[in-house]
């Protein structure tokens, strides 16, 4: 058997030398391909950030007045009054990223079959595993990181604009800067994105990708209807709602105990987070096992699905 490398380097050593690929490069380029194809991944959160900044001009217009009226309040209420736009911005950008995640995941493996470009992607030396991992990294890694980065930037702009307005009115920026506790709140946002959006929701995104790899048409219906049918079946046959409450737990961030471990939105500096308890929660690991199973099934489906 002739090893593939034996002839080629002789023929054009100069040409092939720079093309030595790291094993991570197919993954990196697969992720880039997703960003090229689904521009909404970054356009939607950015658009939300733009709308937020536009709306923030109304806050800015009244800012000097607000600062004077709250000066008599106690610090907790001061923070409440000042932090609201910042909480709203974090929530909206996170929400936009979440919605994009859902629509992205449901289309990720279905779209390439629908537009029949899958054979082009499959003609490249990129394994099905790499492709599926690149696709799941969009809702699990790219979007949370992007949401965090856009939130940080948006809030930084908001803070700078506010400071400029206050200074222009000859007011002190000290209350604003100290009461917002921005670094701490942003750290909590990051913690929440990692625990809730990356880890707790992982099985949910993996399920959407599995349906996306499997459905011949209408993947959205296939993603929603089977769980719905199971829930209805359970309530008729057993007069119970275990399955529905299981899904509800998953969506709303689990039982109260778990969701408080992940941080409840909106965040405030006094919030107590418990990463150790979160990592010890069986629900987290059961969810991750399901996510791995769903993803393995999606890889297998992409491999086995015959070109039509």
């Amino acid at each position: 058997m002739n090893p593939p490398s034996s002839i080629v380097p002789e023929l054009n050593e100069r040409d092939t030398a720079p093309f030595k690929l790291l094993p991570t490069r197919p993954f990196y380029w697969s992720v880039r391909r997703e960003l090229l194809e689904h521009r909404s991944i970054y356009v939607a959160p950015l658009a939300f950030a733009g709308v937020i900044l536009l709306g923030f001009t109304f806050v800015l217009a009244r800012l000097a007045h607000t600062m004077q009226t709250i000066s008599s309040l106690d610090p907790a209420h001061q923070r409440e009054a000042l932090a609201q736009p910042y909480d709203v911005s974090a929530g909206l950008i996170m929400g936009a990223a979440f919605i994009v995640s859902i629509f992205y995941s449901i289309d990720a493996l279905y779209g390439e079959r629908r537009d029949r470009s899958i054979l082009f992607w499959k003609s490249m030396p990129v394994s099905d595993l790499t492709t599926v991992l690149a696709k799941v990294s969009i809702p699990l890694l790219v979007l949370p990181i992007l949401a965090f980065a856009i939130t940080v930037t948006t809030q930084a702009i908001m803070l700078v604009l506010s400071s400029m307005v206050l200074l222009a009115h000859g007011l002190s920026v000290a209350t604003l800067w100290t009461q917002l506790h921005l670094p701490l709140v942003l750290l909590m946002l990051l913690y929440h994105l990692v625990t809730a959006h990356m880890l707790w929701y992982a099985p949910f995104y993996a399920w959407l990708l599995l349906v996306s790899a499997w459905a011949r048409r209408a993947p959205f219906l296939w993603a929603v209807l089977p769980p719905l049918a199971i829930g209805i079946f359970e309530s008729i046959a057993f007069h119970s709602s275990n399955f529905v409450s299981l899904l509800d737990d998953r969506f709303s961030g689990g039982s109260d105990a778990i969701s408080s471990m992940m941080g409840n939105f909106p965040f405030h500096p006094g919030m107590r987070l418990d990463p150790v308890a979160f990592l010890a929660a069986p629900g987290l690991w059961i969810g991750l096992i399901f996510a791995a199973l769903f993803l393995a099934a999606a890889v297998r489906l992409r491999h086995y699905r015959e070109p039509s």
Partner: protein
Amino acid sequence: MNVIEAKGLRKAFGSNIALDGIDLRVEEGRILGLIGPNGAGKSTALNAILGLIPYQGELRVLGRDPWAERDQLLRDVCFISDVAILPRWLRVSQAIDYVAGVHPRFDRGKAETFLAKTSILRTSKVRQLSKGMVTQLHLALVMAIDAKLLVLDEPTLGLDILYRKQFYDSLLNDYFDRTRTIVVTTHQVEDVEHVLTDLMFIHRGRIVLSSSMEEFESRYLELTVLPAQLPAARALKPMHERQVLGRSILLFSNIPREKLAALGDLRTPSIADVFVAVIGSSAPGSQGARL
């Protein structure tokens, strides 16, 4: 080393047998044409070779099992298929970046050189290109990959004659170098007639003819006879007979040229002529009409 080696390759879709145990051997440096009517199993055979579908029987491509080792295999194998569509949202520059990113044997400079010969703009999206230009782009990407095996499944379907001719010209002039191997299926047999080194007819999942082009050209002769000579010609057992404008055209296999020359006008038949004769005789009926 044989680039492709198949023994008893079989594939059934439900009760429909697409490949009925075919044996195949393609050596390095050959250009093999796989010719057959629609649904004969050509694409199934190519999909098996590319590791896109599971199959029964033995199959080795460049010494690898294509189904189990598809992604390693695809470093050395490229394919263009009528159905392997370039994504419509992709820009030409992005396509080059992507292939350069994932393919260890891609030479960006070569792709740029090929594209420079076309009127394709770097900033265009695939959806803005004509079908012929999309094929040119795909060919430019594939020819810039230093692959050992190139598989073409109806690569020029739906293209006009100028694009088709250009496609095979660039393939021969800029790509093929005798260490590479090409397998091509097409309905437009006349386009590849002078490109191929080997020929295979496939019909109902079986290989009904397999030959090198030299063998093919020395083996088959077509004789145009006047009615007076017809009985003598028929006595030599033609494999196929047809009437054109009141004259009979008989196709012979393995009959010495001298014997036939006395009976009428001789010429080397085209692949299409032999295809009709072979497929027509193996299954009388409507087959063989679509070439």
